[in-house]
């Protein structure tokens, strides 16, 4: 009697397995349930049915009756191979990193045909075929079995009818860490992760915007900074508290708070900020800035992906690894490598005045780096901002993006190096170092002294956009000059910081200055920008010469000794001063030297 069940199950497992084959391309709705059924079913049957049966069968026919069946032994061997490869696919997976995953896959697939052939050959004496067939059909179409899978295990939603998402739809980035550990760690201390509660500047600015312009205005900030909150209907960004204190998200490494949240609350606790899913589930972009992208969280999910239990989580990971193709497809799109993709946030227009505040993408479009006809010269955002740097040079990182995955020549690193060395650096030295290295590739200095004038040329050699770009009214890039005569006396200096940390009036920073409708500087309320008061930024490829007069000509005694530094600071001190009132624990950003020339004349 047991033989019949063995046969039924072998056939079921064969059919369910074969249906998973790419050849059939069955709809995802059935695929993920089928995959879970196939793997778990095989496992259960192996343990309770097949192992005892084989044991008994071999004992009776091999040991007791001493039947010499080559076919039987061969069947057993193939069966072992199928089992081993199946277990390998389940436990280790076919992630691309090792060739065994691939071997297992093909062995499991093609081996099953041989197995079935041998199997039927082995049992051809049996005359219960029709009974089997009927049983197979009844069991596989047992209504409760299938209906239960549809309603419980597959939590499908129709995207078109959704007006807002639930917290649970936003898969926590901490979940991605299990397999994408390195990428997670790079991102965790990057500026993309730390756009909301761990960024005091943002929290103060959003609060201020809400107070000055009305709470509705916060949505403008949140579109790019906090998409998960916007899509779940939150009206403002929130900060994590640890009892009575702000959670230590400012200095913590590796997004520990997020990981703890995920451990205890799974996806029910919303992850704010730009998470993995926030970028990797963007399906459409419009490149207008101001969050002009479409997010679609409905993706093909493997069975148990949404489970709140650890067991379910573990199983879903195994299911993904055994056939990662769908997983990859649902998180990666070709547009992600294009600059137009980044443009959906890295251009910014004030909804109050309609003026462009940030125009990084537009700057890039006009730059020599946007040259689609010439692939040698053409560089997209990711070619600089997501490429690994080593010793000041772009050094594509060789390795895997998934633990155990295939080795790639150029891993797109997720440090998101840009200009904010400071906030990322509070968490992780590595992130700071990557950003500083990138900044240092951007400009070159040349110095000359002619006609009692110091002439300094600054050339934007590396950036595919203006220097500085982004929120260019909050970025400080300036020249720090010290000129000494032969007696060692300082006869000229410029760009020194004042005692209160602010830049002196003599400095000529490369920046934009925004004015409101009356032409007064906007200060912190940058969205009120209407009139451009000045723009001294250096465009891509441009060389700017600054001339400084040496007033006290009598003191010019050769040889002269000059030190010129190109300094950069992410936020002016007066901005930091304001933020520190709300966040006293925030240190002041340091000044970094992008380039330095020491010369004697």
């Amino acid at each position, binding site marked *: 009697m047991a033989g019949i069940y063995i046969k039924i199950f072998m056939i079921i497992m064969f059919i369910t397995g074969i249906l998973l084959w790419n050849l059939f391309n069955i709809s995802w709705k059935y695929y993920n349930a089928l995959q879970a059924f196939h793997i778990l079913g095989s496992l259960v049957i192996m343990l*309770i049915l097949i192992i005892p049966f084989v044991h008994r069968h071999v004992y009776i026919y091999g040991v007791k009756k001493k039947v010499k069946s080559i076919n039987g032994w061969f069947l057993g061997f193939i069966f072992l191979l199928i089992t081993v490869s199946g277990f390998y696919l389940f436990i280790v997976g076919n992630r691309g990193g090792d060739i065994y995953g691939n071997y297992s896959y093909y062995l499991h697939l093609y081996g099953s045909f041989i197995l079935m052939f041998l199997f039927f050959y082995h049992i051809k004496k049996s005359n219960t075929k029709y009974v089997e067939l009927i049983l197979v059909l009844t069991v596989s179409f047992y209504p409760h079995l299938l*209906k*239960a899978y549809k*309603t419980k295990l597959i939590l499908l939603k129709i995207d078109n009818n959704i007006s807002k998402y639930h917290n649970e739809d936003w898969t926590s980035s901490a979940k991605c860490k299990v397999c994408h550990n390195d990428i997670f760690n790079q991102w965790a201390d990057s500026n993309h992760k730390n756009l909301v509660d761990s960024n005091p500047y943002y929290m103060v600015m959003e609060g201020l915007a809400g*107070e000055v312009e009305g709470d509705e205005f916060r949505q403008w900030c949140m579109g790019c900074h906090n998409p998960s909150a916007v899509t779940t209907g939150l009206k403002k960004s929130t900060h994590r508290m640890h*009892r*009575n204190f702000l959670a230590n998200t400012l200095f913590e490494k590796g997004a520990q708070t997020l990981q703890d949240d995920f451990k205890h609350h799974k996806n*029910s606790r919303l992850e704010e900020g730009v998470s993995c899913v926030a970028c990797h589930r963007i399906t459409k972009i419009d490149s207008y800035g101001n969050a002009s992208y479409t997010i679609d969280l409905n993706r093909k999910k493997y069975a148990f992906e949404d489970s709140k239990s650890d*067991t379910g989580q573990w199983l879903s990971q195994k299911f993904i690894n055994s056939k990662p193709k769908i997983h990859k497809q649902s998180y990666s799109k070709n547009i992600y490598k294009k600059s137009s993709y980044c443009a959906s946030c890295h251009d910014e227009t004030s909804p109050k005045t309609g003026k462009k505040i940030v125009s990084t993408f537009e700057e890039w479009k006009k730059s020599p780096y946007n040259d689609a006809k010439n692939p040698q010269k053409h560089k997209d955002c990711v070619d600089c901002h997501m490429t690994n740097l080593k010793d000041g040079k772009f050094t594509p990182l060789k390795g895997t993006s998934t633990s155990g995955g295939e080795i790639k020549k150029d891993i797109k690193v997720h440090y998101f190096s840009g200009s904010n060395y400071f906030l990322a650096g509070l968490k992780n030295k590595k992130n700071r170092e990557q950003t500083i290295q990138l900044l240092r590739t951007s400009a070159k200095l040349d110095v000359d002294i002619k006609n009692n004038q110091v002439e300094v040329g600054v050339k934007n050699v590396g950036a595919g956009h203006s220097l500085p770009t982004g929120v260019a009214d909050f970025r400080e890039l300036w020249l720090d000059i010290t000129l000494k005569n032969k007696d060692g006396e300082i006869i000229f200096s410029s760009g020194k910081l004042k005692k209160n940390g602010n830049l002196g009036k003599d400095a000529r920073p490369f920046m934009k200055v925004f004015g409101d409708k009356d032409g007064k500087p906007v200060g912190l309320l940058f969205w009120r920008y209407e009139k451009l008061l000045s723009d001294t930024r250096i465009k891509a490829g441009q060389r700017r010469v600054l001339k400084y007069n040496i007033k006290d000509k009598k003191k010019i005694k050769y040889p002269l000794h000059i030190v010129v530094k190109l300094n950069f600071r992410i936020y002016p001190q007066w901005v930091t001063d304001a933020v520190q009132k*709300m966040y006293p624990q925030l240190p002041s950003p340091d000044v970094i030297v992008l380039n330095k020339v020491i010369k004697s004349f």
Partner: protein
Amino acid sequence: MKNYLLFSFVVTIITLIIILSLPNLLPVRKLKIYNSDNELRKDALAKGMLSVPKDYKELLKIKDNYKLTREKIALGKELYFDTNLSKNSDISCATCHVISKDKKYHNNAILNGLSSADSIDERKNCIACHLRDESGVDRFSNAIGEDAKEDPFHLNTMTILNSSLAKNLTWSAKNISVEDEAGFSITSIYKMNMPSSLLVKRLKNSNIYVKKFNKAFKNNSGTDAVNFLNIQQSIGAYVRTLLTRGAYDKFLDGNNSAISATAKKGLADFINLGCKGCHVGMSVGGQVIKKFPLKAFFSIEALNFKTPFVSSNDDFPFENIGGFLGKDNRHLFRVPILRNVTKTSPYFHNGSVPKIREAVSIMGKHQLGIELSDTQIDELVAFLKTLEGNIVDYSKDGK
């Protein structure tokens, strides 16, 4: 052997079928469906839901409010914001029960804070953003009293807004009036730590206060009107005016468009799932004392390797910081006031639950014994949002 195999096979199949079909076999609870907004309102009003009075005349009609006078209220407001009521003169009632004395200030708190030359101290830098919430709490997870003393049981501050409508006050569910509670808060070591005799002495030294007390309590001369009972009376009088009105009240008053369709569904859920059984009255809570957690909740989702079953040793479905076990250590709590609940996170007595959705889910599991669906939680939260309101200005009409 054959029988054994057959048996194991049959048992497995049956178990699988039962487990997988459970969601389809369990009975679905049928909830009442309202055909119109008016029907919903009618049911809500019939269940004792009431809107907060719009004007001073109606305010006086509320139980125990007949004694209110304009003078007492004005004096109470002065005292409420006076830091001299604490021993070190460092905190006032408004330090923990945060509201602003003047709306002009709270509308520009961040801007003022950023542009002022002085640094903002740690307690106030939260206020800069949260003052506009008008929540009547400091939003800390435990109360902090005079001289930065923390509450020994890690209990948090309750909102003072609408508290005069409640029958029971504080986490230990004392059946007292707001006047009495004001007195306790002033003298309690972990709150304002102010001996009553010292406070009376302090206030007697101030001519302004003596005049105001004489006026409020109709005393012609001398300083007899400045006594602890009158201090309690006047603060209580002010607290009785700290009532909030919001979209919910407008809906109850007959405005169908005051709350969204989702919130209406939430209100229906609130009535039909059983929430309103405890959160009753004009204050939507605060009237009865109930056990929490009422039920241990078991779900198949909670099954995993580490915690096979919900541990029966846990006192609460969240971290038990402070070890407080309710009234008489019997897990008895005052059912909290739900007005403004969306502005008063973190939740529960020790502030262990920071988010409203989680709090709603816990209430569903442990008080109602049901696992609320995501949509139900959405609707309930949308309804709770309509309970948000601003403090009603009772100064305008009536005498």
